[in-house]
């Protein structure tokens, strides 16, 4: 009892309450709703019902059965995974050189360059997506340029807006800072002497990058990838604004189940599928982090 009022315990109570109220309770609710029956007018049917002098408890596995066998739900699920992986990969390809550039630039410029990376956060998420709707719209110079190239190559003009490409482009744009920041934090700490040592021991510039810089930045790559992948997979605003029927993602389905179709149990089941897949993929990231460098020498 003596330790109960210690600083540690007292200080950990507010975050504990926060987590219980906003994470644990909703998760339990989600799981419970998944086993209930949909109500006739949306929401859920009462748990205990008295019909003709008999008492019924309305719990069912129907929503799970439906979700597991629904071709449509799995199509959305795999599309979400595919879009998210593609966005994460593109963020890595674009973000790595950018983070490297910032980390290698002179100390006085670094903060300014980081500021440029963060500036988009100052405006509203929706406004930034609307800006992309203009860029990708049929009237924009960008679209004209793309269609000119497409024309030269001998294909009919393409419509950029309301396509899967637009969804991926916007997800890359929205999430790029989350890739750049952890990568920068990692690359900035690299000891220049290690690169010099590898050159001294016979590695070319490119070999030094492959054998030293990349393995040492693995923790940054994994952290950035997780930070991009996880919000991507649950995205629903972007496909709704710039996508078409063939680019809907699992997040759109969940939103529809709760707000339009009002089938809460099916929405909950879909949410559970998404949460479990995010959990699984995060665990995979952690395994990678342990296997390929990262954590082994993190505490030097």
């Amino acid at each position: 009892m003596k330790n109960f009022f210690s600083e540690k315990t007292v200080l950990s109570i507010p975050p504990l309450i926060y987590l219980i109220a906003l994470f644990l309770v909703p998760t339990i609710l989600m799981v419970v709703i998944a086993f209930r029956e949909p109500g006739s007018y949306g929401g859920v049917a009462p748990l205990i019902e008295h019909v003709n002098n008999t008492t019924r408890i309305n719990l069912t596995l129907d929503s799970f059965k439906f979700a597991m066998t629904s071709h449509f739900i799995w199509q959305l699920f795999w599309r979400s995974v595919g879009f998210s992986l593609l966005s994460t990969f593109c963020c890595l390809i674009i973000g790595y050189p950018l983070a490297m550039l910032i980390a290698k630039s002179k100390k006085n410029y670094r903060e300014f360059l980081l500021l440029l990376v963060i500036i988009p956060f100052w405006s509203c998420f929706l406004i930034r997506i609307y800006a992309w709707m203009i860029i990708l719209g049929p009237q924009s110079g960008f679209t004209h340029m793309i269609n000119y190239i497409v024309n030269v190559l001998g294909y009919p003009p393409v419509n950029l807006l309301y396509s899967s490409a637009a969804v991926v482009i916007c997800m890359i744009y929205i999430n790029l800072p989350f890739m750049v920041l952890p990568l920068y934090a990692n690359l900035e700490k690299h000891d220049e002497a290690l690169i010099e040592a590898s050159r001294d021991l016979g590695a070319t510039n490119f070999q030094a990058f492959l054998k030293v810089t990349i393995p040492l930045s693995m923790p940054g790559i994994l952290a950035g990838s997780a930070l991009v992948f996880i919000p991507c997979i649950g995205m629903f605003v972007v496909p709704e604004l710039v996508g078409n029927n063939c680019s809907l993602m699992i997040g759109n389905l969940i939103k529809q189940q709760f707000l339009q179709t009002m089938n809460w149990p099916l929405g909950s089941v879909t949410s559970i599928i998404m949460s479990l897949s995010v959990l699984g993929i995060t665990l995979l990231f952690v395994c990678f982090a342990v296997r390929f460098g990262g954590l082994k020498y993190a505490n030097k």
Partner: protein
Amino acid sequence: MAILEIQNVSKSFEDNLVVNNISINIEQGEFFTLLGPSGCGKTTLLRMIAGFTNPDSGKIFLDGKNITNLPPEERPLHTIFQSFALFPHLTVFDNVAFPLKMAKWNKIKLVSQVEELLEDVQLTKFAKRYPHELSGGQKQRVAIARSLVDRPKLLLLDEPLSALDARLREHMHVELVKLQEETGVTFVYVTHDQQEALALSSRMAVLNFGEIEQLDTPQAVYAKPKTYFAADFLGKCNLLPAEVRAITNKTLTLKVSDILEFDLDIEEVGEIKVGGKGWYAIRPEKIKANRNMPTEVEDIFTAKATTKSYYYYGDATLYEFTLANGTKLQAMLSNLRATQPNFFDNEQEVIVSFDPQAGNFLVE
């Protein structure tokens, strides 16, 4: 033939001339030391040999081949960094194997070569460990094994022992010299530690402001420093203002600190003229002090002095005396006697004596 020839190499950063027209020839199998205070250009010179920096002018030859503008990976030499620069993501074995993998050695030869090197530095048991699991001394030995594994023609060491504590440093001195003798690889060693330079080198260069002050064996540099800086930087030294009164053949008659006058034999008169000014440099341990006039007075110069202070070092005691006109004179007296040393009291009058030939005349 010299294995490393540095010819008229200069380097400046912005407007700062860091290395000024330096030429050095280093022989095969030498343990050569570049000694100097921080900012004297010794590390820049080393980095130019390693290929991390290109000289503004001058040439560097390794084993007769011009390597001045080669990238570091194409130079058959290695550097041991002050921070060791071990790859934290690789095991000890993979660290040592790194240069062989880069040179695409075949697997079987690679494994046996790495194992042999690990045995040489007594790290066989640690092959599977990661650098962060090693002590400072072990890291140092991995760095050495990694740099010697492909038998380079030259090994550059950039203050490799400065990260270790004093005891370990002394232990590594012995190991380094042993390793250098066993492998026969030429070592170029950079340090600001004069003890290290004296103890390890076969030859050494004293650098100051990007120029060589003196290049010779440690014994010669210590006993007969050629410049004021070399005398002052390397160990303790009494530097007394002196004037040449007469020159007969190769003997100078010096007037030192206005009150001492004695003859000094020199190897070469050179530019020294009668009336020329300079310093008389003599090491504190060459000076003796007695309460009474010493008996063996022949060819020994004596003067009266007053004790000002003393510092007890254990093996020796450093005294500060003043001569009759206030000139300060340091003397290092060995504590040879079986009993506790019987120190001179402050303000006590003593007779200092030394052999003038133990010192050196430095032209201003």
